[in-house]
């Protein structure tokens, strides 16, 4: 089953093509790594997948349900009746789609005024309207999995960066999404904490969670991801089996990029 699919996605910022004809598909249980240098469009792509940004043209679907269709060369979002960005941000139909995915940010973006437990529990209760009992049980389960059950009543500022990122992962998991996006989840962390987070993501991969990870950790991508997408200048240059592509890139641009990591 395809969890997510995007086709011919185009995005311009101030008349510069940031994304040009991007298409890819994520099947259930697949782990996809997106690699590429800064400014290649990786983050913009994730932002479009998570409705933090909106594409100009193309189509998108979650769980085989169309979310964006292309009408006369323009992207049309479901429930969209105005072209304004403001209307898109308030679009209720899109809000419903959001429960399909979770996003883990580079800078964690935890809510600093809430305890760890509240950070994990609040959205399932106040957005998804799930019962407090059920959510609390799940939240504690995920925090435990992240090795943080003893920190449930602490505030984010009392945790290390790695711990904060693990809370952010627990927060995403507790929404029970079908797919989790990671936007350079270790870029704000030192090498030791990076390993801590990569280990957690690897465990999630072993559980066959569907994930898309934007990363600069080539070894991690090679060993954990099923497929790798290499982006450069807003286009997908090469896509394929993670291990093969990273050990044996075919395209010149991919080779040049990967050389920097050797």
């Amino acid at each position, binding site marked *: 089953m395809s969890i997510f699919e995007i086709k011919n996605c185009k995005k311009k910022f101030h008349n510069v093509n940031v994304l040009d004809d991007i298409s890819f598909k994520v099947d259930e249980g697949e782990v996809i790594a997106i690699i590429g240098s800064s400014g290649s469009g990786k983050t913009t792509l994730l932002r479009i997948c*998570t*409705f*933090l940004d909106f594409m100009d043209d193309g189509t998108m679907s979650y769980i085989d349900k169309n979310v964006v269709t292309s009408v006369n060369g323009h992207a049309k979002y479901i429930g969209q009746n105005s072209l304004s960005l*403001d209307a898109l*941000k*308030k679009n209720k139909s899109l*809000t419903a789609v*959001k*429960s399909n*995915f*979770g*996003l883990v*940010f580079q*800078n964690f*973006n*935890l*809510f*600093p*005024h809430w305890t760890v437990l509240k950070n994990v529990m*609040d*959205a399932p209760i*106040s*957005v*998804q309207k799930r019962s407090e009992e059920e959510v609390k049980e799940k939240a504690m389960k995920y925090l435990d999995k992240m090795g943080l059950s003893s920190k449930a009543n602490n*505030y*984010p*500022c009392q945790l290390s960066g790695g711990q904060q990122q693990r809370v952010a992962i627990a*927060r995403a998991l507790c*929404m029970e999404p079908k797919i989790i996006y990671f936007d350079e989840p270790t870029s704000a962390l030192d090498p030791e904490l990076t390993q801590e987070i990569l280990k957690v993501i690897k465990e999630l991969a072993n559980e066959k969670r569907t994930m898309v990870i934007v990363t600069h950790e080539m070894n991690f991508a090679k060993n954990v991801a099923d497929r790798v997408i290499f982006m450069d200048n807003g286009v997908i240059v090469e896509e394929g089996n993670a291990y093969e592509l990273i050990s044996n890139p075919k395209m010149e641009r991919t080779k040049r990029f990967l050389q920097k990591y050797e």
Partner: protein
Amino acid sequence: MTFRDIVFKILSGSGATLLIFFSTLLFSLPLGLLIAFARMSKNKVIRSVITFIISILRGTPLMLQLIVWFFGPYYIFGFKLAAEWRVVSIIIGFSINYAAYFAEIYRSGIQSIPIGQYEAASVLGYTNSQTFTKIILPQMIKRVIPPVTNEIITLIKDTSLAFVVAYAEMFTVAKQVAAAKTTIVPLFVAGLFYYIFNYLVAFIMERIEKSFSYYR
């Protein structure tokens, strides 16, 4: 007139001072939030009008504004002024003037919240109003407490400006007594009251600030 009489006489004016102070806070603190929203509105007309009004309120003396509020209805519309209008006009003048200052403080507080907070909230599916009330507002309040405290302290001292429309608040009374008895003591007594009042306010605000210090 003994020292005791002076103190009691001045205290009789402190009720009026407290009335202006608390009424102004009651109205201007929430009104400031409304003005801040309008000031940040995506509608250009609303935004420009509010920005202009704020600049007038902050750019002219409060004393002048109080006089205009009090006499305006008579000079402009020829209304006969009711006796209650004096205190009502003072409270309106103070509330609107302070709301303009609070609005700018709130705005800076709201705009200082990192964009990542909005983005995390959006991805989790919070509505705009949930995002504001649950995530942005509580963090904004923590950030604006120190500048709001400054304004509140200024407000206590500014209440004395009500003398321009001959309202018998503490300072007006102290001045009258000082003039009648040719002594400076009443002014010192009034000064002491303002000082104690401010000391209390600073103390309370510090407590409130501390209650938010559990996170960074």
